[in-house]
């Protein structure tokens, strides 16, 4: 029986006071713009569903939406598949070594996403370093087209997304009680079984948080796919940008935003219900 678990350290009043400044900021700078956006999608001198009706019949919208999902899903999946072993590797290091490796993971954050995109074309391009190395090894016969196609778009995206995935999985790996894995080992479980039965299930909150963060970041990205992707890799954010800045059709831009919001909201709700998803929101 713990002495404090049933006791709130802060009264609701002082807690409200502490949350209020942030709440005010978010109402002004987050909720209000969003409400404006939703309003914008329905209001053109009067209430109308024109934008939504136009969206419903737009093949461009459907195609771009599909592309966005395929790309975001792939990028998220790949960064999960790569990110998990990396997080595992990090979690097994001594704290000192881990800090060093974490710096390697964080380094991409220090470089502007614009610059990095160009750097990736230098690396992966036709005359890029990787292809030159391949050409050298194979005597000039092997070359892979790695940029200006979907591969390039996804490589660019996961370069940006991976640290988010790694950090959120690492968090839940480090929070695990090492004794559990040891206990499983004592009971005769092999490393695979321990991973499958103990480590993996316990890290699910981090995995789900990582998936949510990666996916929502992905569906909002467009500069990287535009710089590194091929002609088909147009993202929904591109379309929003198109309506916002080029055709000034803000109701359309807003309607697309609303659809995007609903989709990411649904995703968060669904994933949040998966076991362990309660921790997704980070704080509670």
């Amino acid at each position, binding site marked *: *029986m*713990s*002495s*404090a678990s*049933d*006791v709130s*350290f802060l009264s609701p009043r002082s807690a409200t006071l502490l949350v209020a400044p942030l709440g005010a900021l978010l109402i002004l700078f987050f909720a209000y713009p969003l409400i404006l956006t939703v309003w914008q999608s329905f209001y053109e001198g009067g209430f109308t569903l024109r934008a939504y009706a136009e969206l419903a019949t737009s093949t461009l919208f459907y195609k771009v939406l599909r592309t966005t999902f395929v790309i975001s899903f792939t990028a998220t999946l790949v960064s999960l598949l790569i990110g998990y072993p990396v997080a595992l590797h990090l979690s097994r290091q001594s704290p000192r070594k881990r800090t060093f490796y974490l710096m390697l993971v964080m380094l991409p954050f220090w470089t502007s996403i614009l610059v990095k995109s160009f750097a990736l074309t230098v690396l992966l391009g036709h005359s890029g370093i990787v292809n030159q190395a391949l050409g050298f090894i194979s005597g000039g016969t092997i070359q892979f087209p790695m940029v200006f196609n979907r591969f390039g778009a996804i490589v660019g995206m996961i370069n940006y997304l991976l640290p988010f995935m790694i950090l959120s999985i690492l968090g839940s790996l480090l929070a695990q009680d090492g004794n559990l894995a040891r206990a499983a080992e004592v009971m005769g479980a092999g490393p695979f079984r321990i991973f499958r039965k103990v480590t993996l299930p316990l890290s699910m909150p981090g995995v789900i948080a990582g998936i949510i963060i990666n996916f929502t970041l992905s569906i909002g990205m467009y500069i990287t796919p535009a710089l590194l992707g091929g002609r088909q890799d147009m993202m929904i954010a591109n379309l929003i940008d198109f309506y916002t800045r080029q055709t000034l059709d803000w109701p359309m831009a807003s309607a697309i935003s609303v659809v995007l919001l609903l989709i990411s909201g649904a995703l968060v709700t669904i994933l949040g219900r998966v076991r362990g998803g309660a921790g997704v929101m980070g704080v509670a």
Partner: protein
Amino acid sequence: MNAQMKPPVAPSASSPLDKEPALAHLAEPSTPNAAASDAMIEVRGLSKLYNGVAALSDVTLSVGKGEFVTLLGPSGSGKSTLLNLISGMTTPTAGKILINGTDATTLPTNQRGLGMVFQNYALMPHMTVFQNIAFPLQVRKIGKDEIRQRVMDVLKLIQLEHVADRRPRELSGGQQQRISLARCIVYNPPLILMDEPLGALDKKLREGMQLEIKRLHADLGVTMLYVTHDQDEALTMSDRIVLMRGGKIEQQGTPEALYFKPQTVFSADFIGSSNLFPGKLSKDKGGLMLRCAAGAFDVPAADGAFVAGSAAVLLVRPENIMVETPADASGRQQIAATLKDTVVLGGIVRHFLETPAGEQIIAQELNQPNRARLMRGDAVKVSWRVDDGRLLPAERA
């Protein structure tokens, strides 16, 4: 044999707010009772509801200055809630708390001037041992030199001067708990609350710490309110034990009183081990007799609450039960039983027996060498002196 929460049965379990003095209803006379004026803690009609569920209902209690009182009870009995209410970490739904004569019912925790020792030590991991102990003094804006002096003094008192510059996590559990104690006594709070402070220590360390806490209590003359669910610890340390059950006080008194004169089946069962024979009372010659599954027993003289025809429970402590071969029969309460098992606990031997009716009986005796051993399955007689039995009111279902 039943430690679950049940409605209380003992008449002493609670008392209405208007009944003064607070402890007048107690049957036990040996309590170092205190008049209201020199009570360190006075709790009157205290209740706490969590989401409509009572964690504590209508509790009245007084703790005298310099007294060592233990709150004992199973999980969920309300002892931690009571402690939290006294410390001010939570506020009561109803009732009043007086600390050192002043009303502290709504006083913020940090103005109550209490000390507290926690089960998990609650040492600040980012501070050294010295900084930890100095913390309450710094809070009180005491000068640097005096802080140094007082911290080193308490460190000397607990014989841990050499760890002053270490961090808590570099110390053993026992050392950490002593630091935690030192941090508490360094600012001389008149009242120290202890929330299962030894729960995380191993047996040997625990026993050492029990003695150390007792020694500090004696040396400092401070009032201590101690929470534990360990009956042995409560029996060892306390001037008075307050046994709690289901948010109410079941019984309170000295360790002896609680052990030898429990007033309810719950008390009897929670403290020490016990043989309980539920049955029905009937008149027999001059006295009463209890009829139960195991047979009919004479019962010790009891007060007017026990009349013929009422249900009652007879308690016999295992150490009062003799196990004999049938030939040894002499003029005591006697029943036939079969020996199921014998456990030797160093100096003590414990027998587990079963009556023909299927009742379990535990008997305990000193382990003596050169004694004829009983074998498993032996038919034996168990007996006890009538006066060693104690009659308890039957539990209401």
